[in-house]
């Protein structure tokens, strides 16, 4: 049996029944990572010794009959903008190249309590700014389905790792599509929870009103399992919600009959790849067969989402990234003659071009004389977009769209034109602006064997419906069972 092809839930069940030891699981995934990661650059660091030691301790506890957690012995890959104590957390930036996290993020603390094995830290676009992982200071990550293509971004390393089965689970973060878009490009499930569902404490801040941590997995059951572990109120994140956390792995199985699904016409535009459109229509037919009612709806302000996002996200980023000044941690320039020069040169040497571009854009939007025209205006349009979703959810229970307009593009294809790269996020951004949950689900392949995904957007805190829709779709299809052979 090849342990690396098992789902997280299967691994956890086998470990509890003592059919499999955590050490065997750890060794299998570490071995596969050793042979495959050099071709993908999905992991920036692999915590081999720590993982083997934790697996051994877990096996000893299980042998003594002590209770194991929900994720006991399940390997998980962690995006390298989430703090893991005593482990480097670089955000794929030169400015944090040698930063060792002094504490665990809340999600990491919860994963450790649940018995998960934190196998390594994954590559991303620097500070999660990008859609291809090409903005990493430590090299691009490759798409396991075609290594000449990007895995998407910014959580490209996590998506690539799960698709290639270098871990059955991963954590990413999603500010404008950074979980859902790479999930779609890599043929796996990626879920952005409702804003406030998962604590952001210990996630390096990019745009605090949009950022949310969420799971990557092979199937709906695994996402449900992981989401249940990481969700909940955290006193260390005042924006986290105190709503009770549903038992997602149970909710998953509730039937879809009577469910109303909306198809917003603004997402089925001429820029949408024809094959993707066909695959989405196939998925819609499966939902009809499962008893859902499908209707056309309209979200007329969709076309403004990218413009709103590229004011608000850089504005928040310019404030959040002010902390990288070479004083307390991170890169410090050796060229500076005085304190101000130390700030300016440390930042110029430490940040890559996309991060600088966004800091510039955000600083400009917030600067005297432009604040009302840009930042305030964008905030007001954000409210209009959110209200439009509220209205739509009076008519339907979920909204189904393509996740991205095209399949994974070639490395280098869009990197010279920032605006074109921004426009590839066109279908994922509104979800973050509205704060609602969204999931990307694999639904087929193009002629070039590249994965296609659809996106489901749900009501605030209704992750259960997204997961049950994914679960029932996957019970009728087998796209999620395909595994790439990495060349």
């Amino acid at each position, binding site marked *: 049996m090849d342990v690396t092809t098992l789902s997280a839930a299967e691994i956890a069940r086998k470990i509890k029944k003592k059919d499999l030891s955590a050490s065997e699981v750890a060794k299998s995934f570490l071995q596969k990572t050793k042979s495959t990661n050099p071709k993908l650059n999905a992991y920036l660091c692999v915590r081999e010794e720590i993982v083997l030691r934790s697996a051994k301790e877990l096996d000893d506890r299980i042998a003594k009959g002590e209770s194991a957690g929900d994720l006991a012995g399940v390997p998980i890959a962690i995006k390298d903008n989430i703090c893991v104590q*005593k482990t480097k957390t670089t955000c794929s930036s030169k400015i944090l190249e*040698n930063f*060792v996290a*002094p*504490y665990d993020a809340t999600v990491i603390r919860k994963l450790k309590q649940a018995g998960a094995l934190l196998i390594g830290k994954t590559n991303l676009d620097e500070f999660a700014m990008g859609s291809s992982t090409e903005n990493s200071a430590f090299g691009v990550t490759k798409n396991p389905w075609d290594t000449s293509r990007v895995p998407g971004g910014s959580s490209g390393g996590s998506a690539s790792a799960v698709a290639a089965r270098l871990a059955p689970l991963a954590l990413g973060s999603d500010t404008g599509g950074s979980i859902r878009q790479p999930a779609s490009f890599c043929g796996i499930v990626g879920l952005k929870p*409702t*804003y*406030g569902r998962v604590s952001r404490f210990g996630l390096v801040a990019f745009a605090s*009103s949009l950022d949310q941590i969420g799971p990557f997995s092979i199937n709906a059951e695994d996402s449900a399992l992981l989401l249940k572990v990481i969700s909940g109120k955290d*006193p260390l994140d*005042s*924006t986290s*919600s105190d709503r009770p956390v549903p038992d997602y792995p149970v909710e998953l199985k509730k039937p879809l009959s009577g469910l109303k699904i909306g198809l917003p016409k603004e997402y089925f535009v001429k820029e949408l790849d024809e094959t993707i459109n066909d695959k989405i229509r196939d998925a819609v037919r499966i939902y009809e067969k499962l008893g859902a009612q499908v209707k056309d709806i309209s979200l007329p*302000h969709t*076309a*403004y989402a990218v*413009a*709103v996002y*590229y*004011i608000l996200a850089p504005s928040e980023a*310019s404030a959040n990234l002010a902390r990288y000044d070479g*004083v*307390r*941690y991170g*890169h*410090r320039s050796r060229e*500076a003659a*005085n*304190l*101000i*020069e*130390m*700030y*300016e040169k440390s*930042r*110029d040497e430490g*940040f890559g*071009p996309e991060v*600088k*571009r966004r*800091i*510039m*854009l955000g*600083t*400009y939007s917030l*600067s005297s004389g432009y604040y009302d025209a*840009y930042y305030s*205006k964008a*905030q*007001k*349009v954000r*409210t*209009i977009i*959110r209200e439009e979703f509220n209205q739509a959810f009076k008519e339907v229970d979920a909204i189904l769209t393509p996740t991205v307009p095209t399949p994974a593009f070639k490395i280098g294809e869009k990197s010279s034109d*920032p*605006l074109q790269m*921004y426009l590839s996020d066109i279908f994922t951004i509104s979800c973050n602006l*509205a*704060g609602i949950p969204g999931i990307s689900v694999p639904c087929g392949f193009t002629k070039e064997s590249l994965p296609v995904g659809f996106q489901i957007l749900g009501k*605030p805190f209704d992750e259960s419906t997204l997961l049950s829709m994914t679960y029932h779709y996957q019970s009728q299809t087998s796209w999620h069972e395909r595994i790439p052979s990495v060349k």
Partner: protein
Amino acid sequence: MALTRKDVEHVAKLARLALTDQEKENFTGQLDNILGYIEKLKELDTKDSRINAHPFSNKTVWREDEARRSDLKEAILANSPEREEDFFKVKKVMD
């Protein structure tokens, strides 16, 4: 309204970024292009729209102002580019 190189230099100063000449050149064109795209928001009438700080909550979250123990001092100082005893060391702040 085109963005000029002078605007870029002003914003770089506000953002504490020592940009090279090449970077200033690139950003002037690129940012102008992005801001041109963003202009489309002007088409919308937003006078009745409000600004919300949080999508679902409009209450302020309070906590007790209590002292808690922390044993992170050494781990935090270990990340500093330059330290002296328990201090972060920087260049002279005042003349």
